[in-house]
Structure formats: structure tokens, C-alpha cells
């Protein structure tokens, strides 16, 4: 992560500037510690990261947190309200809701991370091309980006699901294809301003290839806002996965996606409200955690933009 504010000048892996390489490294280290200090002075960052850590731990340790299986029915425990053996109650097949939610955290986490990584890559590459080359390439990429940007991600993802078919894998592809526009705009803007800088000019005069300039010299300096954006995109991806699965377009029963659990609770609202109450609550808490953390990250990394 590029945290230091000043643009570091590299020419073919060697840092050129007035400081020696060693000094430069210590500056970076101090920056990192300073950055973490400032970040965790934020109440939001602390609460947010606790929630995120708990969420990741739940996903990772799901089999050890519960003695039930997420898909084996139990005829003796159908639609039980929350009690000591089943703290979140059971569903219409007698399955423990807490167990299903814990395993569902795995689905949410996977979908969110994979989809956000893909959309980040698509957006960054397109934004870099548009910002670096300008001209016709920029015009075409920007036009497509503006359209993709104007549309709500959920609707766009539904459109891609319509074409690709339902299922979790397609949900990942759909979210990735529907949410790259933000990164593209940010990276393009960064490239437009960075490519004017002297050190890029220097790199060009030294005869470096475009690819090298883009990936080694400009991109690392353009990544800060992209990382903030990705943090705030993760919760959105979690909600979209849950919505699509809720609509029957994503994960399919008996997969324990939070959206699938909510969907099964929809018809049981009167007799067993806990089936839909707890997965929704979990989504809310996790989204809140990522939002708090992301906002704090933005405030600390980019003080001008708060």
C-alpha cells in the first residue's frame, strides 16, 4: 500500500532523489506506524475492524463454532424459537440458524473478496489505459464507464445474471462486471494528473516501455483512493450477493447464503420471524463494520476529502 504522500521517484527499481535508499526505507516505515496510529485513534476504525475480524473469524472457524451441520435436517427441532441449544432458533427443516449463518459468512466473504478483486482489476486497467493514452481510447472507455457508473450496481448485476444464468459463480462475475466503473474513474483521474509529473517525463526520456511506466511508476502512486474505494465496495458486494440469492438468482438452497436463509424466512415471517431476523441483522452489522472502517481509512489517507 502506498501510504506516503510524496511521490517516490523510481527509475528502473532504483530510487533517484536526494535521499539515500536507506533513509527512504526508514521514512516509509515511520509513515506506516504513524498511519496506523492515526487510523486507530478513530473510534470508527476500531469498532469497524473488530467487527471485520469477528466476521472473518466466524467464516474461518465455522465448523468449530457449532456442533450442528448446516444442511442436515432434524425432524425433532423444526421451527424452534431461539433457546439455549439453538441460540438463533431453527428453520423449517430443523436446521440451526446460527450454524447456517456462520457457514454463510464463508459465502459472503468469498463472493465479496473475489468479486471486488476482479472489479478492481478491470477498473484499474481500463482507467490506466484511458488516463495514460488519452485520445480515442480515453473517449471510448470513458463513455462506457459513464454509462456503467450511472446504473445502480444491483440492477446491472441482475442484467448480467439474466444473461449468464443463476448461481454463485455467476453472481461473482455479475458483481465484478457491474461495479468496476468507480475504480476506472478514480484511476483515470490519477493517471491524468500523475503522467504530467517530471518523474514520468524522466522515465519516458530514459526510454522505458509504456507498460513499465504504467505498472511500475504511475500505478503504485495511484492506488490509495482505489484501496479506500475497495473497502467500501466490499459491503456493497455482500449486500448484492444476499439480495440476488434472496431473489433466487444467486446461491441455491440448501447453500447457507444469508440471502437464501432470508428467502426461506420470508414465508415464515408470521410463525418464525427469527429465521429472517438474524441473517438480516448479521448483514447489517457486517456492512456497518466495513463502512466505519472504510470511512475512517478515507479520512486518514485523504484528509482533504472528508
Amino acid at each position: 500500500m502506498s501510504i506516503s504522500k510524496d511521490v517516490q521517484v523510481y527509475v528502473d527499481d532504483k530510487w533517484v532523489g536526494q535521499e539515500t535508499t536507506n533513509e527512504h526505507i526508514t521514512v516509509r516505515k515511520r509513515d506506516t506506524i504513524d498511519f496506523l496510529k492515526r487510523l486507530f485513534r478513530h473510534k470508527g476504525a476500531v469498532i469497524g475492524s473488530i467487527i471485520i475480524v469477528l466476521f472473518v473469524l466466524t467464516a474461518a472457524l465455522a465448523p468449530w463454532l457449532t456442533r450442528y451441520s448446516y444442511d442436515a435436517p432434524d425432524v425433532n427441532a423444526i421451527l424452534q424459537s431461539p433457546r439455549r441449544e439453538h441460540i438463533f432458533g431453527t428453520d423449517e427443516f430443523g436446521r440451526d440458524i446460527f450454524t447456517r449463518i456462520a457457514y454463510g459468512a464463508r459465502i459472503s466473504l468469498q463472493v465479496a473478496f473475489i468479486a471486488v478483486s476482479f472489479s478492481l482489476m478491470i477498473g484499474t486497467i481500463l482507467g490506466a489505459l484511458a488516463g495514460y493514452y488519452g485520445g480515442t481510447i480515453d473517449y471510448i472507455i470513458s463513455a462506457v464507464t459513464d454509462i456503467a457508473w450511472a446504473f445502480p450496481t444491483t440492477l446491472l448485476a441482475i442484467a448480467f445474471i439474466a444473461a449468464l444464468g443463476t448461481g454463485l459463480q455467476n453472481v461473482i462475475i455479475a458483481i465484478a462486471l457491474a461495479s468496476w466503473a468507480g475504480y476506472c474513474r478514480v484511476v483515470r483521474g490519477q493517471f491524468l494528473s500523475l503522467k504530467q509529473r517530471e518523474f514520468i517525463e524522466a522515465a519516458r526520456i530514459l526510454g522505458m516501455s509504456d507498460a513499465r511506466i504504467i505498472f511500475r511508476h504511475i500505478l503504485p502512486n495511484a492506488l490509495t483512493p482505489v484501496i479506500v474505494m475497495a473497502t467500501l465496495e466490499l459491503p456493497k458486494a455482500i449486500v448484492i450477493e444476499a439480495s440476488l440469492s434472496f431473489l433466487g438468482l444467486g446461491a441455491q438452497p440448501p447453500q447457507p447464503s444469508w440471502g437464501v436463509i432470508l428467502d426461506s424466512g420470508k414465508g415464515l415471517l408470521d410463525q418464525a420471524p427469527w429465521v429472517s431476523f438474524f441473517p438480516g441483522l448479521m448483514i447489517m452489522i457486517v456492512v456497518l463494520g466495513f463502512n466505519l472502517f472504510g470511512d475512517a481509512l478515507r479520512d486518514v489517507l485523504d484528509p482533504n476529502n472528508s
Partner: protein
Amino acid sequence: MLKFIAKRLVLMVPVIILMTIIVFSIFYFAPGDPVSRIAGPNVTPEVYESIRQKYGLDQPFFVQYLRFVKSVLKGDLGISILQDRPVIEMIRERLPVTLQIGLLGFVITFIIAIPAGVAAAVKQNTIIDYLCMSGTLVGTAIPTFWLGMLLLYVFAYKLRWFPISGDGTIRQLFLPGLAIGLTNAAITARMVRSSMLDVLRQDYIRTARSKGLYEKVVIYRHALKNALIPVITIMGLRLGWIIGGSVALEIIFSIPGLGRLMVDSILSRDYPVVQGAMIILTSSIILANILADILYAIVDPRIRYS
């Protein structure tokens, strides 16, 4: 002014063309044979050929696209595979309900967000501000469809103030409208607050105060008017988001709206209906964006119409 509006409308044309290309290619390049999508896997070669010709599937991409655009321009969105009736007719039946939910959502958004945002800004860093801001944090994290389920449970199942399902009367549309309004109000209140804080720092507010005007007059007549300008533009951009959120709500409240039609058609692979619904939705979002632009220019005299 007229020139400005005309120019914005002309700029809309390439966007709409690009949009139709995207919507068309999503379904053109969708995996699977389009004929078996329509008629199922087991058809005689004669039937296969007649379907290919009926839907023009034997033509190359560009010819098919032009034919698609031509019929869309004539208001013909094709024929539903499942129901064998014009898609435009089906959309016309479903659209009003979705629009009503959205409109209701907008009204509720403003009723909540403006007073809350103004109060938070005027009483900055007091308990009122903190309460409003915590409210917006929760409101932005809560999934709209889960909020809808909570409202349905409390106000329809338990308190019985509203019908559980119905025929799309305003009484039935109120709860989904409220769900949209509440979550949307959270984001809007934040914008009203920050925009209001900006305005309150301006010189003309200090002038108004030093003239000895009542604080109420300063806030509502001078500050709020100017603070709402950026909010209006963003509200235009929220339309698509509102429609996206209404898809799941229509299913929870069993309302026969456009979102529900779209999801049902995706699940039953009724592609012409999905395509038609996408075209209508995307065009209205593009139109809403442009209307917001024009409105912005009308309310803010500082914008130049060039």
C-alpha cells in the same frame, strides 16, 4: 437555456445507442442456443428453422441489432415467450406500481432527510447531531429488503395496520415505500447536513445574520435553499437505486410490479421480457439523470448554459 436543454438532450443520443448495444449484446452473447431457449431442447428441425426465422436469429449480429433498434423505436419490445403477448403491454401493466413505490419513497426521503440534515448541521456537535449521524450510519448499513421484512412483520402481521398482501392499493404500497424512504433518507440526510454546513460558513449567511434577521429566516430562507441544490442533482441519480431496491420489496410484499416481472422472467428464461424491462428501466434512468442536470441548471443561476 433552451439551447442548454437541447444540447443535453442531443448528448443523450450516443448514451442511449451505447446502452441498447450493451443490452442487446448481453442477450446475444449469452451462453446457450437461443432457439432452444425459446422452444426447449427437443424440437424437430422444421420447427427449429421456423423459430429461427420468426425471431430473426439466422441473421448476423449487426442485422439483428438494427432490427432490434428499429422495433424498439416503434415501441415494439418483442413478444413474451411464456405468455405469447407483447412485452410492452406487460410492462405497461406493471410499471405504474413500481413508479408509485418509488415516488412514495422519494417523498418519505425528503420528509425525513431535510429536517434531520438541517437539525444536525445547525446543532453541529451536539447530541442532536450525534443522534442523526448514528441514525444515518445504521440506515446506510441496513439492507432495504430486510427493513421491508421487519416493517411487514411489525406493522402488517403484529399490529395489523396494513394489509399483508393485496392488489396494489396505496395502503399496500406504503410499507415498501417507507422501507425505500428510510434507507434513502439516511444517505440524503448526510448530504443535506454537509451541504448545509458548507453554506452556513458562507459570507452571505454572516451578512444575513448581521442584518439582524431571525435565525429561522436565515436558515430556512437563505441557507436551506442553497444547500438543497446539490442534493437535488444527487436525488436524480438515486432513481435507479430506488428501482433496484424496489425489486426485492415487490417480492416481499407480493406486489405485481416491474421488478418482480423481471425476476420472474429471468427465472423462467423469458428473455424478450427481460430485455424489454431492461430497456425501459435504463432509458428512464438516463432520462432522470438528464432531468436532474437540467433542474440543477435552472435552480442554480451560477451554472452557465454553455
